[in-house]
């Protein structure tokens, strides 16, 4: 469950990104976060894994006020969240397999289980045959799918995606959205920020809309 209680975020240059945002996303739901560029979508997502901290208000994840988490608990907390950004953010010196394995490596998973899970995740995104490739050898769409496999491999309870289809052609974008709905069907809470309204209209999920930092609820 993701819960925002009167969250505001102002940046030092006096630009207010979020104004008094409150919403509640129950566990296992999938929600689209829409709104024009600069409306505060990215900021909202970045508050959840503690990349940014709110200026005021509270963010609760599964009932825990994450603003009160001790610094040493943050890594553990982040492991339960899968992050997918527009930029695939892969490490070029590692193979596709090793990129996807990173979230398991940092948790010291045994080798066999790591291999099994990585292959399962790559299979889900249709890249099982590219595990030895380097990210640079992949197309933009393939890179994004590796990114998704990496976000899902450790079976997070929450997945946050920020414009995950931003760089992709419509067909690939649809593929990726389908992967997301599959994961949501498996019980993962999904919060997907996008301005691809045409794309998300094909999916039956509520929309949260941000305009100038304020939240508007639609089709909920």
């Amino acid at each position, binding site marked *: 469950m993701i819960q925002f209680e009167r969250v505001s975020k102002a940046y030092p240059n006096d630009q207010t990104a979020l104004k008094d945002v409150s919403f509640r996303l129950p566990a296992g739901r999938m929600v689209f976060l829409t709104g024009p560029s600069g409306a505060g979508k990215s900021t909202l997502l970045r508050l959840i*894994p503690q*990349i940014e901290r709110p200026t005021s208000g509270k963010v609760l994840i599964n009932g825990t006020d994450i603003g009160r988490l001790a610094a*040493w608990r*943050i*890594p*553990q*907390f*982040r*492991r*339960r*969240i899968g*992050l997918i950004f527009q930029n695939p*953010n892969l*490490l070029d010196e590692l193979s596709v397999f090793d990129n996807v394995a*990173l*979230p398991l*490596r*940092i*948790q*010291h*998973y*045994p*080798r066999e289980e790591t291999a099994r899970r990585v292959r399962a995740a790559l299979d889900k995104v249709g890249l099982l045959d590219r595990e030895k490739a380097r990210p640079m050898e992949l197309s933009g769409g393939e890179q994004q799918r590796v990114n998704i496999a*990496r976000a899902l491999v*450790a079976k997070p309870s929450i997945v946050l995606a920020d414009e995950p289809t931003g760089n992709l052609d419509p067909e690939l974008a649809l593929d990726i959205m389908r992967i997301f709905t599959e994961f949501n069907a498996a019980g993962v809470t999904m919060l997907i920020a996008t301005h691809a309204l045409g794309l998300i209209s094909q999916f039956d999920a509520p929309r949260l809309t941000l305009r100038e930092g304020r939240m508007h609820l639609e089709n909920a």
Partner: protein
Amino acid sequence: MDARQAQRGHSGSVRLGAWLTHHGESLRDALRRLARRPLGSLLSMLVIAASLTIPMTLLATLHSARIGLAGWSNEAALLQLYLKPSVDEAEGRALLTRLKNDPAIADARLITPEKGLEQLAQTHAIDGLLSEIKNNPLPAVIEIHPADMKGLDALRDHLAALPEVETARMDSEAVERLRGLISAGEQLTMIFLAILAPALAITMGNTIRLELERRAHEVRLLQLIGATHAFIRRPLLYSGAVLGLGGTLLSLLLSMLAMRMLVEAAARHGWDMGIQDTLPNMLLLLIPVGVILGITAAWLASALQIRRIRPT
């Protein structure tokens, strides 16, 4: 960690195995990264080696000089045994025979009180004064040339404990003074090394800091997916250890070369003070010291730096 471990159903030993695997991977990762920048890594090691080589060569030379001094002073260094006044000449001669048979003693000579007085008179021209003395106050003395300077102190203690001997004195002031000078030199070099250590730590720490800077992208990603600082730091600690190890090994090599050149130069001038071109074992201690220094430097540099790299 235990609760989470139980949740995942991994036994502790499986986790430990994975953790050890991670250490192996960290070491391999560190080596790969150092190899990817061979020039930079080599330069860092050379800086460490160059700054260590001077004090190390100095230590080695001093050590060698100490051994050389021992050989050189064999003839000069005398051990004098002052016999007790109750020991008569026959007993003195018996002791002399025993001492001459001791393998630790190259030669021994008895100076009776009478002979001693004669010598004193000759050297100090105090004939008149001596003739006034009724009872010869001098003790009988046995002068000893030790076979080997190494166990000199032990030999003196052993001889001093003989029942006939009042005191045993080393008559090698010049040698002692030189030895003192060598000790002072060694201490000075050690102080020099101690001052050098932080400078080396800074050099290695800076290399690690640059490495971390280059890896900022990776560090950010690792932070985002929930890697602990310890996980991110581990390969860097191995880099520090490798830098420290490489640097000290290189400086040992350079010191050996320097010693060899010194010995050859000395030999060309027909000067054989017994300096050897081998390094004293003591210098091998510098290897673990270098490794620990490298790890410490990496730890400090990464502790300061990782916090400054924030996920974006």
